[in-house]
């Protein structure tokens, strides 16, 4: 058993993630204004929005999410500028009936992300949002993070673990174990995970084979060209070995 640390630097802003994505996909990025408008109409501004309106707003949001850069834009709208305690009061509450905590809000956001539009095949939908989810993880890893980015990462990892089995098997089979453990590390930082978090990263416990598969899949999905490192610690040892991902195909 090994312990991997996917570092999340403490003060990166989700807005940076969106900016980066917008730079990359500028031509076809959806206007965040459209996303904001739909969120407003679905009940963010008026809690009494009728059911048919909420349903249509979320259906339109789902179809917007197919466009590159839309998922980070949505998560930025939901989570940006939040303090951990303010979330259930001011944001995301429209997504759920009775908001109680941030976990519920991230679950609601994940459910929204995992709902394909009516006329789009599940495979096509997941194929469109998977690179965006991975990009959030990648950017969060390479920059300093803030609370909103942490929520976004939580949402992404939740998406991985909540995805319906056939889809998950097709798209994420090697990565799910790795990411599910990352989620576990985020949700319940204890033991080794807690130790890792103190070092500025988030700890994940995974069998070596699964870890290797997960890292390789992440690299493939990210299509990374620049060297990226994933720190790997031997359990019970303080020795740290950075694995550099140079070529996504021959990695590890």
């Amino acid at each position, binding site marked *: 058993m090994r312990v991997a640390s996917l570092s999340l630097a403490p003060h990166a802003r989700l807005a940076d993630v969106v900016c980066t994505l917008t730079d990359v996909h500028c031509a076809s990025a959806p206007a965040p204004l459209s996303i904001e*408008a739909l969120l407003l109409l679905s009940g963010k*501004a008026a809690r*009494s929005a*009728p059911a048919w*309106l909420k349903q249509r707003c979320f259906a*339109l949001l789902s179809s917007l999410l197919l466009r590159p850069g839309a998922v980070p834009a949505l998560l930025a709208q939901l989570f940006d500028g939040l303090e951990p305690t303010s979330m259930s009061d001011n944001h995301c509450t429209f997504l759920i009936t009775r908001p109680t905590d941030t976990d519920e809000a991230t679950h609601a956001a994940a459910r929204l992300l995992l709902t394909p539009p009516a006329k789009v095949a599940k495979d096509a939908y997941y194929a469109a949002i998977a690179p965006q989810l991975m990009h959030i993880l990648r950017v969060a890893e390479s920059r300093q993070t803030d609370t909103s980015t942490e929520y976004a990462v939580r949402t992404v990892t939740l998406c991985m673990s909540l995805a319906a089995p056939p889809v998950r098997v097709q798209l994420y089979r090697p990565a799910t174990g790795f990411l599910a453990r990352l989620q576990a590390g985020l949700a319940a930082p204890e033991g080794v995970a807690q130790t890792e978090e103190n070092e500025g990263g988030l700890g994940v416990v995974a069998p070596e084979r699964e870890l290797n598969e997960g890292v390789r899949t992440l690299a493939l999905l990210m299509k990374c060209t620049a060297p990226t490192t994933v720190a790997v610690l031997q359990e019970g040892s303080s020795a740290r070995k950075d694995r550099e991902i140079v070529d996504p195909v021959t990695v590890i």
Partner: protein
Amino acid sequence: MSARRQELAVAAARVVSAVRNASQELKAQSPSVSAALALAAAADGRFDAAVDECVAALVALTAEKRRGTEAMETALSLQEQGALRTAFELVIVWGLMPLWLPGVGVSLSRRSKAATDLLACPARPPSAASFARLRVLSSSLLTALHDADIALLFAAHYLPDLAASLMQLAFVPVTDPALHGLALDAALPQPDRAVYADELKRLLER
């Protein structure tokens, strides 16, 4: 910049300024007097007349602007931008909002101070006439947005309002209790509703 376009912009600004001043005077009255005056103004069609004037000026300005070819002819001055914003606000607050069904759109109390300065126009019960007017106003606004500069100015502040109107036109269920038994199929045939759904999708994907 063409003289005609300048005239239009000035005219729009004048209309907007006049109705805003009148509105503020009415609001200065006690709340009950204001409400009574608003009801009287609505009954006289004064809100509608002001909105129609603004819409006409907006559409004419768009058409005039699209005729220009040089940057100097098509660029909007700060004064024009201000007039446009106020005209949009007026069309939304006095034109669209009274026609929305309960729970649709962003209410006046949750808007900017500038918008809340306007006297609230009383809501209208749903009827064939109210849906017809919502169609006219939404279509006019969509026409005004054919110009990229104007569309940009509009989208930055008022996209949710037009989206709300199009949502209501395209998607409100015919059996919705808020319609109070209105025969929506007759007032708004299904093919027309599909057109508004397409317009909404296009608007959001711009």
